[in-house]
């Protein structure tokens, strides 16, 4: 195991290099920050642009810039934003907790809701409960996340005035964004749990567990659930990754100061240092999550571990 983790860390470094290299290169393809920064100026000469570029250190060859960035990362210096010179590390340090909080709470909420619902649907397969659960869970998939988000805002903030419609101050602010994400995540999770459950419930050892007189709850949540945990864990891992990096739209609606928005703004502002820094952190988190998922496979299924 120790060796396995060590190997994965080496691979992670490789992944980080590839990702940051790609991102640094791609973002440089997609636009020139000097043009952006000078956009409002009356008339701009090529000389002005070059001055701006030189000021940002963009006049050097790409690989030199990249090497510089990597060197910075190694010593923990993420550079400064093109948009105003804010230290990138500070921006990330501010955004990361918000993102992690949202990701954790949404996932937790979703798991807490979808596991029982999915199991319930599986056990009552074909009956009314199952149909209702299946149809309701689809709502989260039929409307885009911003749509759900705006609906929640209209209902809970504007009409009922229960929750703050946006921002990041205190646990109350977390409710709606987490709810939005949880509704969406649950749509998939409920159905995954249901299916995986159906595959497991017919196993002999489930009959055996029942023969021991275990409460149905123990049979389902202990014996069956763990046996169908692999698709769930896989998917939750993926969802975590998505939540960390990809929920820009929801973050925007709730004005949630997360990494997704940071990355998004950095992309649209061609703010290379912020983007590179954010992506590095994203990649780190995702690599870590995938490592955890792989380790979890062995935990939930000892047969995988023994190889």
């Amino acid at each position, binding site marked *: 195991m120790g060796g396995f983790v060590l190997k994965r860390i080496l691979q992670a470094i490789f992944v980080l290099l590839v990702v940051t290299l790609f991102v640094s290169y791609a973002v440089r393809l997609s636009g020139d920050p000097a043009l952006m920064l000078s956009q409002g100026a009356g008339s701009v000469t090529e000389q002005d642009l070059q001055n701006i570029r030189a000021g940002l250190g963009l006049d050097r060859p790409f690989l030199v810039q990249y090497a510089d960035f990597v060197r910075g990362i190694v010593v923990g210096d993420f550079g400064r934003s093109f948009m105003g010179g804010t230290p990138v590390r500070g921006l990330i340090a501010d955004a990361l907790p918000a993102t992690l909080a949202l990701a954790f709470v949404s996932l937790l909420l979703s798991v807490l809701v979808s596991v029982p619902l999915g199991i319930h649907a599986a056990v009552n397969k074909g009956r009314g409960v199952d149909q209702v659960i299946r149809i309701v869970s*689809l709502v989260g*998939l039929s409307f885009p996340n911003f749509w759900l988000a705006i609906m929640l805002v209209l209902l809970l903030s504007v009409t009922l005035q229960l929750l703050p419609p946006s921002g990041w101050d205190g646990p109350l602010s977390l409710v709606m964004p987490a709810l939005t994400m949880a509704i969406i995540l649950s749509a998939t999770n409920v159905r995954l749990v249901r299916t*995986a459950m*159906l595959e497991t419930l017919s196993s002999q050892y489930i009959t055996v567990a029942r023969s021991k007189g275990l409460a149905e709850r123990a049979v389902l949540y202990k014996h069956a659930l763990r046996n169908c945990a692999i698709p769930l864990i896989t998917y939750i891992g993926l969802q975590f990754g998505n939540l960390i*990096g990809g929920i820009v739209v929801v973050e925007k609606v709730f004005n949630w100061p997360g990494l*997704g928005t940071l990355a998004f703004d950095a*992309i649209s502002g061609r703010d290379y240092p912020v983007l590179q820094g954010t992506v590095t952190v994203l*990649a780190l988190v*995702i690599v870590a999550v*995938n490592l955890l998922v792989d380790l979890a496979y062995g935990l939930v299924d000892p047969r995988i571990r023994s190889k």
Partner: protein
Amino acid sequence: MQPAVLPTAAAPQGRAFQWRSLEFIAGALLTGLMVLLVLLSVWIFPDRGSTMDLAARLSPPFAQWAHALGTDPLGRDVLARVLVGGRISLMVGLLSTLGASLLGITIGLVAGYYRGVWDTILMRCVDVQLALPFILIALTFISILGGGLGNIIVFMIISQWVQFARLVRGLVLSVREREYVQAARAFGVRDLSMVRHHILPNVIGPVIILVTLNVANNILLESSLTFLGLGVDPLIPSWGGMLADGRTYMQTAWWVSVFPGVAIMLTVLGLNLLGDWLRDRLDPTGKL
């Protein structure tokens, strides 16, 4: 040496069985109906919902025959646009899901089945893909190749295969250690046939679910692209685009965004019913 099977005549059919066929009928009907309406929409609405009437903008639904589902901010008929819009949405949703799932399943199978180097390489690719911000890929991809329909589908495949790959790989890792797989290996079943007959059928359940859900996801992904300004021509109606356009009207004109959402829901419901039915068909043990 067997007790004989009794004739069926009086034997009542199991409840599960009834539901299963009902599931199929409902699923096929719903999907079929959506597809049919969408296909026929061009004949029903020869203008393809493009006739504008700024004077009649945002008229509410169920008020007049001409615009049964109301009109949008440009005074176009919502019903016509929902039906015509299905053509793009269904095509994008189905094709991109098809592509992504085929790619992802294949990669997941290879990685999970062979493990070792293949697994390492493919799963690191997954890591890379997951760590790249969706918008950046969208932006680079679409701004380099242009935002045509084909490109959007390709882009969706690129951004969606990962989940299939990882899901399938996880399941394969577990299934390949089962004794029946070893048994098959023992009498020399070749890899391809092993995967086809023993691995795939035993991992396919969750995958089917993901596939049916992914159709919805990809239809909606288009609306996220629109939200970010990377979508297709807004003159070509699509469910995702309509949802994105309707988002500022949610307090004033709910129908603009609700009906495309309902259309997505019905389609996805139909597909899911079919998916569940298929899953049940493939799982002989599930006759609870």
